[in-house]
């Protein structure tokens, strides 16, 4: 059996130096005549360990990391592959606590093999879901998804089965599948990690969706800031076509479905589903009013199934393992697993796929291992830039859509950004408004003008120039944005601001009160 060395070729890992490490390893292997294949696999998402080198020996994958090029001679200089007894060895993959503590369904395959290795994909269960989908009726597929309890992972958590059923039932022969890969939330990277490291899973899921609802074309709307994902997806599509996972005759079934990648142009709002559809149609990325729902009148006015990367990918788990198996994970109405993305001021950042229901605190302490600065955590923003900032008394809250909603927060796309006690919450509140002002498409007034006025108002409060009534104005502005905005950008921008007002009392008020005391 050939010996293999795995070094990730994935954006985060590369940015931490895996290319240089790979080069050094290759040189060592050659210099010492070690008969081992160097595989550039995907990253497992334990970024604090990157560059992470895995050595396969006798079917075991041993982990070394983080490895710098300077460390490489120490690993391979002896002329044989480093073993378990090497001082730097962290143990087997399943012995790494950050990974061992996860429940990986969607990300099970991520980091195992070279992303474009179709044989490895099949060997690890790839294609099973598609075959099953081809063997049962559309109604049965939708039933499986309903059983699974899968909800939209892009942020809105809308029950996936209802969308599928709506598109399936929509009249017309021209329908589309659109995969939203415009992953723009700060602190999120799960879509990218999946597309770069397990592209076939997404393509398989899209094919299942197309076959089920009667679409012939799927479009992946990919943000332009993901060049590696673009490259991988295009290569994967070509190979999937060759292998009949896509194309005119999928797995010999006579059914056709194909996938194209469209690049965004750098606009956050194009991650909003209707603005994304406008963008794909070649127009300005501006939000559409709903109704009509995209499921009935979406891309080019045709019924369109729009899902985030993670939602679609989860469908392969649902079909392969069965809806009830998927639903066995989780809690309440939040079924299955959620790939959380830990970032910010943390010791161990990366992807953590967990069943719903675990407390938020487990992400912070069990997985993240505390703050990077060593100081105490003060706030955690969950769900991207529009998510709530949660203070310590909320950290025992279960990771569950309903629990978060009840607390004025959201799981969103699963981004978790931690801040230590040096953070200025008033500045974060101002940032929320500024973010909205920068990223607003400008169509609706509460978002276009409201975010700008909100930014200015909070600035005034922070500069202690505010009038006594300004908090009342801010409150009414937040209400107008929440209730009046056309889409979730303006509608959710108040969430972080309100969470700061609620959970960090004094952050905004203090300045004003102090100011009035000065006068």
């Amino acid at each position, binding site marked *: 059996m050939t010996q293999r060395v795995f070094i990730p070729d994935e954006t985060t890992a590369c940015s931490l130096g895996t290319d240089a490490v790979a080069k050094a390893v290759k040189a060592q292997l050659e210099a010492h005549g070690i008969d081992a294949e160097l595989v550039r696999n995907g990253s497992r998402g334990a970024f604090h360990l990157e560059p992470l080198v895995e050595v396969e020996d006798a079917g075991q994958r041993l982990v070394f990391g983080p490895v710098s090029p300077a460390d490489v001679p120490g690993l391979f200089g002896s002329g044989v592959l480093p073993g378990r007894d090497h001082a730097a060895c962290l143990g087997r993959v399943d012995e790494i606590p950050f990974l061992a503590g996860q429940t990986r369904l969607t990300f099970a395959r991520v980091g195992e093999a070279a992303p474009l290795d179709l044989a490895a994909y099949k060997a690890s269960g790839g294609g099973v879901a598609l075959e099953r989908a081809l063997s049962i009726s559309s109604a049965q597929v939708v039933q499986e998804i309903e059983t699974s309890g899968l909800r939209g992972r892009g942020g809105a958590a809308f029950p996936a089965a209802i969308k599928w059923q709506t598109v399936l039932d929509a009249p017309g022969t021209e329908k589309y599948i659109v995969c939203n890969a415009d992953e723009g939330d700060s602190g999120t990277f799960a879509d990218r990690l999946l597309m770069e490291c397990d592209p076939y899973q997404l393509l398989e899921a899209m094919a299942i969706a197309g076959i089920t609802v009667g679409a012939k074309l799927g479009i992946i709307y990919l943000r332009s800031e993901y060049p590696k994902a673009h490259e991988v997806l295009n290569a994967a599509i070509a190979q999937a076509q060759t292998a009949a996972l896509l194309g005119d005759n999928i797995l010999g079934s006579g059914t056709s479905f194909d996938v194209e990648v469209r690049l965004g142009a750098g*606009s956050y*709002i194009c991650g909003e589903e209707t603005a994304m559809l406008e963008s794909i149609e070649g127009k*300005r*990325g*501006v939000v559409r*009013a*709903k*109704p009509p729902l995209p499921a009935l009148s979406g891309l080019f006015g045709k019924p369109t199934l729009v899902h985030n990367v993670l939602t679609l990918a989860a469908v392969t788990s649902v079909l392969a393992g069965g809806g009830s198996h998927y639903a066995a994970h989780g809690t309440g109405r939040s079924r299955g697993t959620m790939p959380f993305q830990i970032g910010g001021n943390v010791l161990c950042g990366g992807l953590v796929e967990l069943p719903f229901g675990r407390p938020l605190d487990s992400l912070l302490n069990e997985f993240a291992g505390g703050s990077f600065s060593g100081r105490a955590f003060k706030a955690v923003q969950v769900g991207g830039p529009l998510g709530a900032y949660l203070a310590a008394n909320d950290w025992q809250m279960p990771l569950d859509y309903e629990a978060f909603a009840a607390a004025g927060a959201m799981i969103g796309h699963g981004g978790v950004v931690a801040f230590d006690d040096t953070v200025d919450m008033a500045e974060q509140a101002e940032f929320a408004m500024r973010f909205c*002002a*920068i*990223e*607003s*498409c*400008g*169509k*609706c*007034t*509460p*978002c*276009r*003008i*409201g*975010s*700008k*006025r909100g930014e*200015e*108002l909070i600035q005034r409060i922070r500069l202690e120039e505010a009038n006594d*009534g*300004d908090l009342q*104005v801010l409150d*009414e*502005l937040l*209400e*107008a944005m929440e*209730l*009046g*905005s*056309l889409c979730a950008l303006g509608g959710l921008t108040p969430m972080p601001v309100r969470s700061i007002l609620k959970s960090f009392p004094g952050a905004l008020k203090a300045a004003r009160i102090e100011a009035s005391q000065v006068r």
Partner: protein
Amino acid sequence: MAETVQHWSPQEDLGTPVSPSMETVELTIDGVKVQVPAETSIMRAALSAGIALPKLCATDSLQSFGSCRVCLVEVANRRGLPASCTTPVEPDMVVNTRSERVLRVRRNVVELYISDHPLDCLTCAANGDCELQDVAADVGLRDVRYGIAGENHLDLVPDQSNPYFDFDPSKCIVCSRCVRACEETQGTFALTVSGRGFASKIAASEDVNFFDSECVSCGACVAACPTATLIERDVVERGLPTRTVDTTCAYCGVGCSLRAELQGDEVVRMVPLKTGGANEGHACVKGRFAWGYATHADRVLNPLVRDDPSHPWREVSWDDAIEFAAARLQEIQALHGRGSIGGISSSRCTNEEVWVVQKMVRAAFGNNNIDTCARVCHSPTGYGLKQTFGTSAGTQDFASVGHADAILLIGANPTDAHPVFASRMKRRLREGARLIVADPRRIDLVRSPHVEAALHLPVLPGANVALVNALAHVVVSEGLVDEAFVAERCDTDSFAQWRRFIEQPAHAPEQLEDVTGIPAAALREAARLYAGAGNGAIYYGLGVTEHSQGSTMVMGMANLAMATGNIGRDGVGVNPLRGQNNVQGACDMGSFPHELPGYRHISDSAARADFESAWQVALDPEPGLRIPNMFAGSRAGQFRALYIQGEDVAQSDPDTQHVQAALESLDCLIVQDLFLNETAQFAHVFFPGTSFLEKDGTFTNAERRINRVRPVTEPRTGLSEWQVVCKLATAMGYPMDYPSAADIMEEIAALTPTFAGVSFAKLDRVGSVQWPCPDAESTGTRVMHETRFVRGEGKFMVTEYVPTEERANRRYPLILTTGRILSQYNVGAQTRRTQNSLWHDQDVLEIHEADAELRGIGDGERVFVSSRKGATVLTAHLSDRVPAGVVHTTFHHPESEANVVTTEFSDWATNCPEYKVTAVQVLPSNETPAADTVG
């Protein structure tokens, strides 16, 4: 004058377009039960029930957009506050438009608007006509709590580049109504929102000024703007109107309904009427803005006479002028016979004015020497459609194009010549209809934003009949004939004969490639597309009629439509795009030497008897002279006097030198016009005419729609034109008098079966009527020949292609064809006297680069254009819009003398001149360019 004053107020706006649904939904809004068609918005449901709702981005001419967020409402059992404009009604829905929360959010949204808006309402041009002002009042905004220190757009600089309207971005609320109007209503896509978020602003083209942008100045954006951001310059300078008069545009044959908005008797602005049947709230740069000629200093307001055209004019009273004219005409008749005089009626005048002119000729002149300027444009339409279908008119209404699946556009350039219809057509094309353009030039519709023709057939000038025969050959030989339709609806003998003719291999596209200049494969594809698309519609213009085989071509198109079953329902038909506002009406009103009103032949003694009995005069049963015969007769000395109403034959008719010689030979030429035109140089009597703003009457547009023309002011000349004609007839011994124009229509209705049910009272009540309108109950006919052809069975006519004798040769190697441009109109008498000349200040000669290079001609250089008839000098514009071998010019400016080069050839059946084909040579000229003619 209207009997009651119509006070100015904005036109009704129910916020979102009407729902086409036939189902009715009942819901409750603010406790009121409301029934509306399904798919209606909550907003429209509320507004149509009289329940007020604030709105800014919504207007019922545009699809709902949902951006302004001031129309939010509460809906029972629904989260949040849905926008009433984008939320459709549902059965038993319970809506609350005025909850405390709704009112607070609305007020906060309006406060945001005002935090970025100048607080200058009192000095703003839109004060009193501003929807933002109305909404701020509605929500009770009393304070802008954000202060004035925030970022804003108040320093943005106004764009005053357009002569008719201003754009002041500092007042813009970014509702996108202008952008959407440019897209949805006009279809030009000149406007966009540039930037995003707070930086969003309206931009013309790629952020250039309006004048330099792709904007066609139709005014749709100005009409749609809820604030003073886009506003008519006249309103800025003069203030808001106080009263309104609804009338009809006097430019092209689309016949847009316009609302003249006035201060006293002065027009402040002209806006398209949303209830207008032809235009449904849209207009173009001419109708909307180019009405200033009516008060231009060049207007002649008093009658003029002179004994000889070499003498100076003498200003005289109406009575003296009429006596002078009558005496001359009678003297000439006494010397040279009854038939030595005649008249030409005008397609620019009302039906009532035309009626009295032809009546004067027949009854007072005592002959049938009456013709009309339709002779030189659409006479072949009348002839061709009468032969085949039985009616000298187009088959559809304009709205029909909204149901067409394949549109065959032949020899017409609607985006320039019929812009409001072009907007309808473009909308349908954006919805997916396929377009075939048959035109030597690559007109804009071949490819422009969001429109692309499926096929462009660049037919060589003069080869139309070969083209239509080849199309028909494909239909017949490829089994595309709608046999059931033909069997049921058409004259089968004529069909059999036609089929034998058209089946001949000589008509195959492959055989005719060299004649038509069209690749056979493209022509076959066009035939299949037209015949097989479902609803195939033909639209055509003067590129069909103004040929030696104009009438043959019209019949060829009628054959094609009948053979494919594309007649008698929405979305199909054979549709002339009429050049002038009342071409249809002038023809309907009996302006032809062989036809009485209603297209009844003068030799038809029963018809003649009706008129003789009504008019108490004996009518000449022999047809009179056509215009070309009049000119020939004049040069021969037999025809001695001519009355011309509203046509500048010296500029507009072909072979100018011949026309001028004919006019010079007359003993008496009477010209009735707004201005001393080119023809008036040869006149003895000049009767000042009235502009459409002074006329009371009706125009009939290209869809047979009879629209009211209402005066905004008394005739500035003191007399209505029909009164002048009546006085002249009376002075010649045949008393004619009517209490009002309405009484003329009463006579028209009494003597013209297709108009029998038409009256001013009915038109005032229902807006407009498309003839036939045979009785008092009828409200007209939208689509003709629905169950049977007017002539009974549709008749196929054999259409042998006969090449014109006007051919390119060694001396005159290029073919000149003529056309129109958007900003100017025909001979330019009106548009040249407006700021429209800023867009097009001279006629240019479009010439293909290859032809130009061969002759050493550069772009913008002056060139000498000569035919066997004459020569003129024009500025060359190198262009690949024309194919090599073809050159094109407009004829809007008299100094261009475009018709100096056109020839005497004409349609074999109707004498419609062959303007579209003149063999010319083009050579460099050393003459300096002509000065600008703005004025």
